[in-house]
């Protein structure tokens, strides 16, 4: 029950700060709009570039919204309030992971088919991309969240947070660009989940000191 409450709290927060759900999806579309300006309008190349740009914009949109997982709650004191309810920290961290993934990656997944049609990608490829994103994006969210939990409380952490996180995304992007590696991505996500859960819980335990 508390699990459900914490998730709905985070989703409500995302919904109320009304840019949140729209942000990720519009970010993806805006990046895709830039592509024709860079590469011209030779349509045959677009579908090859499409997968790559999807993954890059997912990585960037996760990086840009990382503040909302722990940092904003930490800065305004809500994290103190949540921790004092004495729910297990693992539960709190899980809720944060899941709600952030729902608020960020689900909108992206919903936009991919439309964006794919604009780029004349065929349906089978779009389906493969969606499966890949579905399997891989949770892992990327978990890693990002864990690193931002580790840097809680340090001022101006944004820049080196990015420097730490981007290399960790490389495996996801390598396998994400490959059409039939949904299972590998799922495996990566599960590994990321275990490590991120452990790190985030540990850093929440430490942050007050």
């Amino acid at each position, binding site marked *: *029950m*508390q699990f459900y*409450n*914490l998730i*709905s*709290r985070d989703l*409500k*927060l995302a919904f*109320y*700060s009304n840019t949140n759900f729209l942000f990720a999806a519009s970010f993806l579309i805006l990046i895709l709009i830039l592509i024709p300006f860079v590469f011209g309008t030779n349509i045959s190349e677009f579908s090859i570039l499409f997968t790559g740009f999807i993954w890059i914009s997912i990585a960037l949109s996760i990086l840009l919204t990382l503040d909302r997982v722990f940092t*904003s709650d930490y*800065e*305004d*004191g*809500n994290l*103190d*309030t*949540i*921790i*004092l*309810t*004495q729910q297990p920290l693992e539960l709190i961290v899980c809720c944060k992971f899941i709600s952030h993934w729902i608020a960020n990656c689900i909108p992206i997944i919903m936009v991919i088919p439309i964006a794919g049609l604009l780029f004349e990608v065929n349906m089978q490829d779009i389906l493969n991309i969606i499966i890949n994103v579905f399997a891989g994006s949770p892992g990327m969210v978990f890693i990002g969240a864990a690193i931002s939990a580790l840097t809680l409380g340090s001022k101006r952490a944004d820049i080196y947070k990015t420097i730490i996180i981007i290399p960790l995304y490389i495996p996801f992007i390598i396998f994400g660009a490959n059409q039939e590696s949904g299972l590998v991505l799922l495996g990566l996500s599960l590994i990321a989940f275990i490590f991120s859960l452990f790190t985030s819980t540990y850093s929440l*335990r430490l942050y*007050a*000191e």
Partner: protein
Amino acid sequence: MSNKLIIQNLECVREDKIIFKRLSCDVESNQTMLIRGKNGSGKTSLLRTIAGYISKYNGSILFNDNDLQVNTELLSDFRFVGQKNSLKENLTVQQNIELWQLIYHTKNNVSEILDLLDIKMLLNKDIDSLSDGQKKLISLFRLLISKAKVWLLDEPLVFLDTNKIKLLENIILQHNQSEGITLYSSNNDIDLKYDLLINMDDYAVL
């Protein structure tokens, strides 16, 4: 049931530096303890230690004869209102309250509390359009949202005007009468009624 908070020989260490040591006191139901002290004398550290945020300390903190270092679940009966207001700046007061209700897992009707704090007219205003005093007042809402046994207030009087301080005093009195304990830190000249006084300057290691 009456409650009792006993602190024995408490020593708080942060980043290898002793903040205060040999601090002992006991607070019972229906009592308010004022924590005084210079800036940096460890008032906030003491309150945060009691609230369990700082888990490494020497000595013991007992709540109803249970060690809080072992029985951490007892801390869910504690409310800590710190200097941060726990408010989302871009949301309205109403929305902030809804988020707190989810955190505290309660669906109580809030209109009574709104009347008590006299903030009903602020309900649809954005937090960043409010004054610091109003924000402080709204952050006190968390104390009343669900029943707690121990209130830990860190500098609650900052930004509040005399009327609001009077109001807070009444709220604390009411809380104490229902077997509650209140600890608050302050450096103001105006004080709420208190039963016990602890001066951090006597324990601080500078």
